[in-house]
Structure formats: structure tokens, C-alpha cells
């Protein structure tokens, strides 16, 4: 019932070949499809057609975030809710987007294009369904098993959060409040994880980062080795978040989009009480070990 999890992120890149080389050879994703202006990729443990679409364009940013819904009739149910809230919804018919059937799209109050889809082409994992090994072989780079979450920026975090929670059924696990009690960032989930979607104060329509799941702290350390070996610009980490309790590294792809590798956290029930962070604790909230947030992390988005 309702939104299941993040499906795919579509980001624009100014150099499709360079971006593809990075996401396949350093990140270790697999190319599943190509068309005239884009490349479709997935992680090895993902079943669906793609979790990342790279689209050639003159600027870098996020075109679309696509969310998978649990049942086919969730599409019309959520379409009605979004329409009633006053945001026009477009139906995208089967065949218009690679690797998926009918979907609905709309602009959110935070200025992001959001898609909901149920019917997605299943291309299978990189391991068999009979007597599978617990990992695939021969995939270069970090090779995360799956995409995890996305963090977007919004001018009015409270208003954006209300839309995601009241209309789309997201649940707020954690919030960061300023001295006046206004929300300056929120973390929301649908998949019993600390966050599937987070919103932080910034310009409407912006992308702060999207994140890949890794299985444990050892995998985070190995990812740091891979990033350093390949000369990738590391933003912060390896370190730990106070918010979400996650273990993390932030870094930039060669075109300037921020990526994260993430593990840890907790498993909230739907009745999980929201955790509150106060602005005077923002350092430990964001980076628990450093107790400080650098300017680049706060200000740079795409």
C-alpha cells in the first residue's frame, strides 16, 4: 500500500561518457540500457531495470526522482490525493519511459519532479535465483548492492515535508529545528529505514545527494580506498551521522553531483516517535565524530 521505496534518480550530466565511466568503473554499477541522450544503470542486487539514469544536458542537476509504489491501484489513489492537494498530475503511458510501464508525474512544493510507478521491467539481479552465491564476481569499483535514499533542498522545508507526509504517506523519523522551532531539515521513510527521502533548507528543486547502500563499516572503509585510489574528491568521511546513526562517506562524481555511501541506522516501525535535533547540536547531528559541518557540505548542491 502506497510508496514502497526510491525507484530511480535521473540526473543530468554535461559529459555522458565521463559520467558513465565513473558510475561503472568507480561506483561499480551495471549498464542496462542506452538511448540517444541517456544511459541507464542499476546496482548488482537490484532486480528492476534501472536505479540511475544519466541524461546528457548542458547543466548538472536532478531531472526526476521516481518512487516505486506497492500496488498498481496506488497510482490512481495517490494521483487523486496529489490533485486534491492542488498539484497537477500528468500520466505517462507505457512505452514513453525506458524499462517501465504507466506512471504519474507531478511537481512537488519543493520544486522537484516526482514520479510514481508500479510496473517496472525486471531484469534480475547479478546472481542466480537457484543456489546463489552471496555476492557477484567481476564487478569493479565499490559495487554497492542497491540505491538507498535521496536528499533534496527546499526553500520551505516544513511545507515540503507536510506534502510528503500528509499526501504521500511518508513518516518523519527525525527533524532538525532552528532556535524558533522551525524545521530546517527532515528525514522521512516508507521502507522501515531511517530515511528514504530527506529535505534540507536550500533552493527549490535542488539535489544535495543521492546515496548507495553498503552492507557494513568494512565496506565503507573499502569504498574510501577505492575513492582515494581513483582520485575522487571526497567531501566528508568516512564518519558517522548522529541523525540516522548511519556510517557514511560523501564525495563528488566527476561532473559535480554529490554521492554518498551509507550503512547502519535502525529499523523504525510506522509508530516510531520522531527524534528532534536542535540547531545548537547541528555539528553532532550531521557528523557525530567531527561535531562540525563544513561550508561545502552545507552550501554545495546541484
Amino acid at each position, binding site marked *: 500500500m502506497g510508496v514502497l521505496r526510491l525507484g530511480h534518480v535521473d540526473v543530468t550530466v554535461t559529459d555522458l561518457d565521463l559520467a558513465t565511466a565513473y558510475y561503472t568503473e568507480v561506483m561499480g554499477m551495471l549498464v542496462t540500457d542506452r538511448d540517444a541522450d541517456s544511459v541507464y544503470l542499476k546496482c548488482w542486487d537490484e532486480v528492476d531495470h534501472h536505479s540511475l539514469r544519466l541524461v546528457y544536458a548542458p547543466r548538472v542537476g536532478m531531472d526526476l526522482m521516481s518512487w516505486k509504489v506497492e500496488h498498481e491501484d496506488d497510482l490512481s489513489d495517490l494521483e487523486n490525493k496529489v490533485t486534491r492537494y492542488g498539484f497537477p498530475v500528468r500520466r505517462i503511458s507505457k512505452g514513453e519511459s525506458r524499462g517501465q510501464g504507466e506512471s504519474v508525474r507531478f511537481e512537488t512544493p519543493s520544486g522537484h519532479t516526482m514520479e510514481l510507478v508500479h510496473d517496472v521491467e525486471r531484469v534480475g539481479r547479478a546472481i542466480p535465483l537457484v543456489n546463489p552465491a552471496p555476492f557477484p564476481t567481476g564487478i569493479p569499483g565499490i559495487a554497492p548492492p542497491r540505491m538507498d535514499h535521496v536528499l533534496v533542498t527546499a526553500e520551505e522545508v516544513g511545507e515540503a515535508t507536510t506534502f510528503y507526509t500528509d499526501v504521500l504517506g511518508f513518516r518523519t523519523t527525525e527533524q532538525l529545528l532552528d532556535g524558533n522551532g522551525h524545521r530546517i531539515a527532515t528525514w522521512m521513510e516508507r521502507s522501515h529505514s531511517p530515511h528514504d527521502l530527506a529535505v534540507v533548507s536550500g533552493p527549490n528543486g535542488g539535489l544535495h545527494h543521492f546515496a548507495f547502500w553498503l552492507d557494513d563499516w568494512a565496506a565503507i572503509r573499502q569504498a574510501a580506498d577505492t575513492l582515494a585510489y581513483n582520485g575522487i574528491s571526497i567531501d566528508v568521511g568516512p564518519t558517522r551521522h*548522529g541523525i540516522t546513526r548511519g556510517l557514511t562517506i560523501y564525495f563528488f562524481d566527476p561532473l559535480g553531483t554529490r554521492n554518498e555511501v551509507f550503512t547502519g541506522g*535502525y529499523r523504525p516501525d510506522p509508530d516510531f516517535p520522531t527524534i528532534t535535533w536542535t540547531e545548537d547540536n547541528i555539528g553532532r547531528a550531521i557528523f557525530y565524530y567531527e561535531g562540525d559541518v563544513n561550508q561545502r557540505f552545507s552550501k554545495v548542491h546541484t
Partner: protein
Amino acid sequence: MSILRLSHVELRTPDLELSTAYYTEVIGLIETARESDRVFFKAWDEHQHHSLVLTFAPTHGLNHLGFKVTDASDLDVYAARLADAGVDVVRTAAGEWGPGHGESLRFGLPSGHSIELVHGMEQVGNSLPLTNPPPRPMDLVGIAPPRIDHAFLTAEDVGATSTRKSVVAPTCWDSGSPSRSSATTGSGWRRGSRCRTRATTSRC
């Protein structure tokens, strides 16, 4: 809406003090309530009153296994579905079965296990504050796992046991964790296994 996850396990033990010492000092669970013949525990990151109950008895083994449902109305839905399937159900009110316990319904599986669906167990909070919490408590002892995860049962007819579960929850075994409950054959999952107990929680 559906079954959410494994809620709690109730085990029999012939030595309540020894078992309590093990589950608190080695496993590192937190004792939340105690009666003359029962002790209730939770793991540190759990919000609900208990995820393990030890009950004094002459033998080791599993008394029952509880699953949390998302909504109170789920209990009616499952009760009706079980009645249609000809399964006897026992319902209890919140707090009736034990301290902090929620409203529940209980029934038997063909494999001889007693299964409970529960809603509204008392929320006692995890061991951290809700404002600016550190990522873990600093006073934990033993292994100190954050939460219960899954149970693994044995059954002579694995297929029949899974079918009963599908009567209860045809869409419920898919919320993101690889398994909440599994079943294997009662003769051990490898031929020649010497382990022939009713549940893996028994001493083999």
C-alpha cells in the same frame, strides 16, 4: 494493514535465574518486568515493552511466537480469515496476558507452534532521549543487540506450515528483511542431523 515484523518470543526454561542472568549479562537485554514465574526483556533500541519472555517450566522450548500488526483493525481481519479457514482463535485484551502486552489473537499452526498477532504493546521507549540522542547508549553490557530479528522453526511438513502462514498473511513477508520467520523439516535440515527438537530455541 498487515503483519509488520516479529514482535516477541516466549521461551520455557527450567531455571529462570540462570536464563535471566544469561539474557541480561551475556546477550545484554534489559529486564522490563518480573513476575513469580515470568521475566520480560527488551533489546536496547526497541521501543515496545518486551521482545523476549522467559516462563518457568520443567522443559526448554518455545511457548509462542508473536508478530506485530500495523493496525488494531488487522486483528479483526485476521480473526475472520482464520475463522474462514477453520482455525480456532483465542483473543485477549491489552494487558491481559502480561504486563505491557497489547491486544492479541492466538492460534496454532499445523506444525504445533502457537502463533500470536499483537497490536498496541506498551511503548516504553528505547534507551536514548528523543532530543539530540547519541547513536548508542554507553552503559550496555554483553552483546547488546539493538533488536530482535527473526525466528527459525522446525516442522515435519514444511509446505503445510507455510500455507497456514499464507492464510494469515498472503502479502506480509516482504517488508524489506530477508525473513521474519522460516521453517525447516523436523528431522533436521540436513539428513543425519542429531537435532530433533520442536524449535531451534530448544537445546539441541
